[in-house]
């Protein structure tokens, strides 16, 4: 496979490989992120991605080898440690939950930074690389397995992606239940605490696997923005997972091309793209998007007002002051509708056959009375 021709651009193999890595990384992060977002643990992912630095540094001191698999274990361990410390602080009852998070990860991160600058300053453990990463170098670091020569990042993240898929597939029921009804999950013996730490471990492993490519800080972007986008698009958990991965892939591939165009940091562009995709969903999502909300409110304002008119007429039918209450000027005065709006509503109600009008007096029709009763019966 030497290259691929797209309408505007001819991609070389290294570029294809970068895109492949980007896709795999973003998919894995999105999968990890779905349950984080649903469980309101988004900022725990931020905390973990910072404190992972300490784990990596300690593992590095032990093995002096950045490519060691011990790093992955150290990452998972640091992630669990972070969450455990947060829980510990919570349980003292002296701090609120968000304060606990904000107290734990800076300490771990600081220790990591200090260890690096004091003892590893002359070794290639560039903190920039840990936090920011450089996906452009991915094709250079290769690994041959099973007769295939591919970038190492692709192998590693491929495995991590498989881990995420397996985790979600195996524990889908338990994850779903413990996310939406922790009490019931515990009662059914699903051990939500265990599941919680398992999820955290998977997140940590994903984070450290991805940092090589995109840096641990941007892992947060890929873990949170695509699931949030999906959350705006659907109510169903399965679809949310699908949309998350979709949004993530669009963000990462789009980000890659954006970065090429502007000749800038690829990971940053991927995160920015994630934000753009989210904003698009925020604005244009059907039902939940801002535009949809605006249009719906406008449409329903009229419908609602017509129903309100029917209910109002029903409530005051046969009252001593019915003649006043059921007149057009009253609508303007007491319902606080402008004259123009009141006229419009009356016209709509007439069109819908709910109301008849004699001069300034309004009369409820049979269908109108039925509608008003239905509305009141529902509420």
């Amino acid at each position, binding site marked *: 496979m030497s290259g691929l021709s797209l309408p505007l651009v001819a991609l070389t193999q290294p570029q294809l490989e970068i895109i492949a890595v980007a896709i795999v990384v973003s998919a894995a992060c999105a999968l990890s992120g779905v349950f984080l977002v649903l469980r309101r643990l988004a900022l725990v992912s931020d905390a973990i991605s910072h404190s992972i630095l300490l784990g990596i540094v300690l593992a590095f001191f032990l093995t002096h080898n950045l490519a060691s698999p011990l790093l992955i274990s150290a990452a998972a361990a640091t992630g669990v440690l972070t969450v455990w410390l947060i829980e510990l602080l919570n349980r003292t009852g002296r701090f609120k939950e968000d304060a606990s998070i*904000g107290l734990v990860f800076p300490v771990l*991160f600081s220790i990591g930074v200090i260890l690096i600058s004091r003892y590893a300053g002359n070794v290639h453990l560039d903190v920039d690389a840990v936090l*920011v990463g450089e996906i452009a170098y991915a094709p250079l670091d290769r690994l041959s397995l099973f007769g295939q020569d591919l970038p190492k990042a692709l192998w590693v993240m491929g495995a991590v992606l498989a881990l995420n898929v397996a985790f979600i597939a195996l524990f889908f029921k338990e994850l779903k239940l413990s996310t939406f009804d922790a009490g019931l999950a515990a009662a059914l013996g699903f051990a939500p605490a265990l599941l919680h730490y398992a999820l955290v471990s998977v997140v940590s492993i994903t984070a450290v696997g991805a940092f090589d490519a995109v840096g641990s800080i941007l892992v947060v972007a890929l873990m949170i*923005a695509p699931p949030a986008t999906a959350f705006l698009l659907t109510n169903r958990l399965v679809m949310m997972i699908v949309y998350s991965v979709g949004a993530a892939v669009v963000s990462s591939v789009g980000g890659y091309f954006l970065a090429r165009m502007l000749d800038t940091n690829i990971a940053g*562009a991927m995160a920015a793209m994630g934000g753009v995709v989210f904003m698009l969903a925020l604005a244009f999502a059907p039902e939940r998007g801002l535009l949809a909300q605006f249009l719906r409110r406008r449409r329903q304002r009229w419908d609602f007002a017509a129903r309100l008119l029917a209910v109002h007429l029903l409530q005051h039918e046969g009252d001593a002051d019915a003649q006043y209450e059921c007149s057009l000027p009253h609508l303007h005065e007491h319902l606080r509708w402008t004259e123009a709006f009141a006229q419009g509503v009356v016209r709509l109600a007439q069109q819908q056959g709910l109301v008849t009008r004699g001069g300034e007096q309004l009369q409820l029709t049979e269908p109108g009375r039925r509608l008003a009763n239905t509305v009141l019966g529902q509420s």
Partner: protein
Amino acid sequence: MSLLIDLFTDHTLRIVALGAGAIGAVAGLLGTFAVLRRQSLAGDAISHAALPGVALAFLVGAAAGGGLAKHPLMLLAGAFAAGWLGMLVVTLIKRTTRISADTALGIVLSVFFGAGLMLMRIIQDLPTASKAGLDKFLFGNAATMLRIDVLTIGALGLLAAFVVLAVWKEFKLLSFDPEFMAVQGWPVRWLDILLTTLIVVAIVIGLQTVGVVLMSALLVAPAAAARQWSNQLGPVAALAALFGALSGVGGAVVSSTIPRLSTGPTIVLMASALVLISLTLAPARGLLWEHLRHLRQHREVRVAQVLVGIYRLASEHPDPTHPHDIASLDAVGLHAAGNTMAQLERRGWAQRANGKWGLTQRGVAEARELEAGGAL
């Protein structure tokens, strides 16, 4: 001692310590409100969101004419605008969708930061001689602090403190009961914006010294520590400012004495140490005292149990002060450990004679009272 002397003679150290101290004080003061309103992690989001603002400010300044680019106010203004915009987006997301607050913060934090990285790379590729370093922004570079930086920080810090003092009672009510405040007719939304603005200022003035990741810690740690020492808002805020200042100065001093120890992380560790100390040792709320209180309660219960136990045993004899040896006490299930007996002796309720223990008259009276009380 030589450290203190250094503080006065070493110019660079003085600058850094003053600057860091001021940053810590302002962060501590405003962090009090952030923490009480459960907005502890807003600092994290603002810190990260500021990056594109700094980069854009630099680009604008470079385009306008080189010298302007590195002017501290210029970059501060950029950081402020971006941080403020970030908080606006967070509020928008929270208000118009069902997305939770932490997710909204996470989106703004990471997306803005990513955009910032893009801009930073573009800057780094520019042919101009002076460039803003990513390292400096991520981790802060206290060593390059200049007098003008300290003056800027000081001025802005004083301004923020002045505003807080002026609307102190308003901020207090806003943090405690915004609904009641609205009913009273206050413009709650505007006050909220004001407070958020001040928090953004507090974060932004410290970014270039302490760095992105760690500035958010200065918003949370001093306030969290201070809360353990007092139950009134005024003292808590004052103490938070003090703790913040101490962390700043202490961190600066310590990191200057030990080679290759960056200032930012050292400040954070100082602040965190203060939290740990406060958590353990603060009177009333401190965990240590709580533990000691528990121990004391347990001891009281044990002493009472043993006293009444001995009394009941001794009541089988005509003389209630009749001595028994430990073995017979154990036989009836009374674990009369050494220190419990020592307590009884110290209070004058029991005395030892020939290796056996007997109650004193006072001990008998005390035991009778306890029994009458019905506790045992």
